[in-house]
Every structure is written in C-alpha cells, then in structure tokens.
C-alpha cells in the first residue's frame, strides 16, 4: 500500500475532483487495481481492435450489508457483470467500475473492497479499464454503491439465447441454490443461526467456456440472481413459449439453507444466487456438458433439474416429492430487498 494515502475516512473533498480526489485515485484505487489502460486516467479507455460480435452489459450493486459471508460488494460487483457477460458465451474483455461513496465511509473498508476486486479480476484475468468515483453527503447513500459494466467478445458460431430453447432441452444448474440470499439475510438480521452458509458469489465465465468446449448445442444460459431459479425459469418459459418441468427432488439445496428458509417462511426457489448458471442443453449432449461442468471449480455439484417438456404452454411446473404438480408463479412482492 502506498504511503501517500493516509486518510482514514472518505470526505466530500475526496469526490470534488481536486487534490484529495487525485490522491484517492492514484494512492489507493490505482494502487490496487491499476493497469496500463486505467493508469492513463483518460476520460475514455481505448481498447485494441476487436474483430467479433460484442456482448455489453451493466449492473448496479447496493447490497446491505456490504460485507457478508463469502464475499462483499466489491466481489459481487465484478462477478455479477462477469456472469451477465458469460450468459452470452463470450470471453470477457474489459470492465468499468464506478463508486458512489457516502461521506464518512471508512478507508479501511474501501481497501478491503478494492483488495477483493483485485483478487477476483486477477482470477478472471480481466482488467478494469475505466472508472469513476463520486462522494455524496452523509445520508444520501448507504455506505457504498457500485456500478460495473463489461464487454466481451463472442466467438464465431456461438449463439446462445432464449429464442433457441427447444422441446426436450435438459436444464442443468451448477450447484446448490439460495445460498447468497440466505447468507445476506443471515448476516443482516442477527438471527444467530449457527450455520456456516456462505454466499455462492463467483465468476462463472470459465465454467461457461468449459461447457462450450464440449458442446455446440447449449441453447440458453442464465445466471439465476434476484428472484432465484424460479423467477428466471418462469421468464424463460414465457419468452420461449414452452412448458418447463423441474423436479423438487433433483434441485440441490443445502439442508441448512432449507432449514432457515422454512424458519423464515421463504421459498429457496425464489431466493437470490450470485454464482449459479442455468443451462438449457440439447438432451443428447446434456451429460457431456454436465461432466464438463463437474470438472470446473464452480461446477462440482452440477446436476440436471428438469427439462423443456412442451411447446406452447408457457408455464413452469414443479413436480413435487409427493408426486403432485404445481405451477410456479412470479412473486408478487420481493422476499428480500437489497440483496445484490
């Protein structure tokens, strides 16, 4: 860490564009996440020639609390955008990063967040090429909000989209559900559940690349964030005009997660994930894709949870352990606010 930057809290002057802003950026931010392009501190980053289709996405992060078991708002803001990019099958190329910081925010917390951003961008081998920092008066924001955007290059012959979903497709997920949402609510409310549930927050583009290596018939990918896997699958059933059947006894969920959900009257199918990819794969290649996923660091618990059963019935049907069926509908009010 630079010796130049010794302030202990964020003041309004850190965001006014003057000397303190310059010290914050050069002495703290670049010190953690600087690179050739970002270090130029130009108004726009200039990227090398990219000769392919591009994926472009943006997301804002307002999670409360900003530190939670398994991650923090910094890691979340990088993984969230990487995963949105990954759903197109692209290779992420560059990210932007914008902070909106509340006056009085502790520099030691900002350092921790920058360290975690550095760790995850290093893992993903991706650079933050442009950014912004604003400071607002105390009470005008809750500690720290982050916006990230990202672009990625989509390889030739890759076409992943809900419009490709076909009858017979198998639906695969890369592990247990609802861990992010439960970890956040557990750390928010002092329920004192003695559990070690940690957020599943993780970057999934390498998982997707491993899947693409073994199959050209991955029809659709979605990261199941807000609203959980149910919300994502309901949307996809509607967009593709297909009936999707999922099987309660095949959906992976940790016992502790289920226990807390039951206690709080929440349905894990609707609770946020931050490291779960749902894949629609042509049925004859589902097992090869599944095996490839299981070999990836973030796919060890991958499994098939359902299939596209009919064309023309845009419903999501849960086949219960009892042998009954019920339609899953969109939630009419959020289970948990400010989860990501």
């Amino acid at each position, binding site marked *: 860490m630079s010796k130049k930057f010794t302030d202990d809290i964020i003041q309004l002057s850190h965001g006014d564009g003057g000397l303190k802003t310059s010290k914050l950026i050069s002495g703290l931010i670049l010190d953690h996440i600087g690179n050739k392009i970002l270090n130029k501190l130009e108004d726009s980053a200039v990227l090398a020639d990219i000769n392919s289709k591009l994926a472009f996405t943006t997301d804002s992060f307002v999670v409360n609390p900003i530190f939670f078991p398994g991650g923090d708002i910094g890691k979340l803001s990088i993984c969230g955008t990487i995963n949105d990019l990954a759903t197109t099958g692209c290779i992420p190329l560059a990210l932007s990063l914008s902070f909106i910081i509340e006056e009085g925010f502790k520099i030691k917390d900002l350092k921790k967040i920058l360290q975690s951003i550095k760790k995850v961008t290093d893992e993903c081998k991706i650079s933050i090429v442009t950014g912004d920092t604003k400071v607002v008066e105390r009470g005008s924001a809750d500690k720290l909000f982050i916006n990230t955007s990202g672009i990625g290059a989509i390889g030739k012959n890759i076409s992943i989209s809900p419009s490709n979903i076909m009858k017979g497709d198998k639906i695969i997920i890369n592990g247990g559900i609802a861990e992010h949402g439960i970890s956040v609510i557990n750390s928010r409310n002092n329920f004192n559940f003695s559990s070690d549930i940690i957020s599943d927050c993780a970057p999934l583009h390498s998982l997707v690349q491993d899947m693409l290596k073994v199959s050209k018939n991955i029809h659709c990918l979605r990261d199941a964030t807000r609203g959980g896997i149910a919300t994502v699958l309901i949307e996809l059933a509607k967009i593709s005009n297909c009936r999707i059947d999922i099987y309660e006894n095949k959906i992976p969920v940790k016992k502790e997660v289920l226990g807390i959900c039951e206690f709080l009257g929440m349905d894990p199918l609707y609770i946020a994930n931050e490291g779960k990819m749902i894949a629609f794969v042509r049925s004859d290649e589902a097992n090869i894709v599944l095996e490839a996923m299981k070999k990836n660091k973030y796919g060890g618990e991958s499994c098939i949870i359902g299939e596209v059963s009919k064309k023309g019935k845009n419903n999501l049907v849960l086949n219960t352990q009892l042998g009954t069926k*019920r339609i899953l509908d969109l939630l009419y009010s959020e289970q948990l606010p400010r989860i990501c």
Partner: protein
Amino acid sequence: MATGRTGWMKKIINDLKKSIDKNRPPNTINIMEVCGTHTMAISRSGLRQLLPDELNLISGPGCPVCVTSNRDIDHIIGIIRDYPVTLFTFGDMIRVPGTDSSLQLEKSRGKDVRICYSPMDAFDYAKKNPDREVVFIAIGFETTAPLTAVLIKRAYGEDLKNFHIFNTHKLVPPALELLLLDKEINIDAFLCPGHVSAIIGSIPYQFIADKYNIPCVISGFEPVDILESLDMILGQYNKGRASVQIQYDRVVKPEGNPTAAALIEEVFEPADSFWRGIGNLPLTGLKLRDRYMRFDAAVLFPVKTIDSKEPPGCKCGDVLKGILKPFECRLFARACTPENPVGPCMVSSEGSCAAYYKYERTKI
C-alpha cells in the same frame, strides 16, 4: 428439494395414499384444517391431487392476521397517526388494509413502523430508547401468547414504562365450538393445529369429540404428517367414533407445555374478541390482567371512534368460517390479488386466499 430423503418418503406417501383410498367414505365429508400453516402446506404441496374427491378440505379461522378485525387495524393506524410512537409489527400485518389506510401506507407517509421477526426486538428497542413510546402488535393464538406474556412479565419486573402491546391474541378451542354451533357450517372433522396444541395439549379439544362427536387429529405440517392425520380422521369417522388423536406426537404432548400455558394464565384472562368477518365471539380472546393493564396500548392511546367498515364485497368472513372456498368469492383474483389485496386472507402468508391464489389458481 434434493436433501437425500426421497426414497423412503415416497413409500410412506404411497402407503398412506392407498390407505386413504381404501378408507374413503361413501359420501363427501368436510374436514376443516384450522391452522393457516396447514392451509398453506396443503396448497403448496398440491396435496389435494392425492386425495379422493370424497375428502373436502376446508380452511378455518387459524390465520391470526386474517382474523384480526378491521377495527383493531383502524385503532392501530389511529395510534400511529395521533401519537408519536414507534410501532413494531410482524411483516404480514403491514399490508392488511384497514378502512382507509394500511400500516404500509402510513410508513410511506413517514410514521415509524418497523417490521420485526421477534417481539424481543420491540422490547430491546424500548429499553434502549427510554424516551420513545413503543407499541408491539401482539398477535396470534396460544402459540405466540406465551412470548407476549414473558415480555409483559419482564417489562413489569424491570418497570419498563415505554413498552406497550396492542393485544389481539385469540384462543382456538372456544372458536371451534362456535363454528360447530353455526348452522351454516357443516364440519365433519377437524385437523387441529400443531403449534397451538404444542402449548395447550390435546385435552382442550376433548369436548369437541365428546359433546359433538367430531373427530379431531392434531397434525404436523409436513405433507406426510397431513396425509397420516387424514388417514387417522377416516379411521375415526368410519367407526363412527370421535376422539382426539395426536399425529404430531414428536412435538405435542397431551398435557401440552404447562410452563407456557401457566404464563398465559398468569398474564392474561379470557375475554370477548372481535374476529374479522365473524364478529364478537364471547370468551375467544385474551386480555391483560388488571395488574398488567398499563402495558395495554389500546387503553393508553385512545383514538376517536372509528366507523370501521369491511371492504364491500369482501367475503373473508365466510372464507374464514369455511363456508366459501376462496375462488367462490367474486373478488378473488379479480379485484383482490396479492398485489392489491382487498381482504386480509389475500395478504397474509398463511391466508387461505393467498394460498389458493399462489398455488391452486391455475390448473395444470
């Protein structure tokens, strides 16, 4: 969910289903599940799909939010409008519409309304903020009344002056008797609530079997519990003999939880209570005993007389008595949806209308 209990459970379910099919009565019988959690579990698991047509499951008045009267809601809204108090409530109450507002609306207008998961949150806040008047909406049946009783005793012992409850506690067994006396309702058996019975035991239901010859089974909340309980009800029904059986015996003992029951007894006494859509039912509620009366927010914070009105067309009362199924109400899924609820049965996570709307509205 995939937690490794699937194989043996399937077998139990199949065995119970076969037994229920074998014992199906010659004519339709009405079995009332009293508790809102049972209603939710039945709808959520799609249990009706496994049952023969002769078993008609009807929902009862066992969702505390649903049976809270409009005038209680109006009184609470009056308190937060007229007095500078901090109101603590369980989440479900916040969206229940009163005559002209809801707690949610008042919160948006700047009133200090806070959602809590435990009554302790309200108590702790009151202790930490002695200058602030704190009101907790004490709601529920015999299950939650002991928690309120503990806090009242503590507040009394610690001479905490700024902690109050708005008391809407109600009792289950006397309400069941009043349902049996209502000629409009035809109940053949009760699926009795598990959590309430964990406190009061099975004995308080005995008069229902003895006096009215109505089978009662105290049931757990897993779908298998409910199936087994229905099978036990059929066993009684087919023999023409009524008794009170405990299926949920891993939690409920015949004598209940004497410590919790004694706490209720010490802090509260039976009193008349207003039930939503049903009216004033004698001795179906609880009121604070005289020595604890100073904690009663309704007494401490009087409000102008409110002309409380049920929303026009709302049939929550008939739904709560089991006379109507939710989809037989003309407002159901039209004017009344979870997004814009007209009556409390559509608001509460344990409400029959919410359960039917969420899980049984669309046929597969």
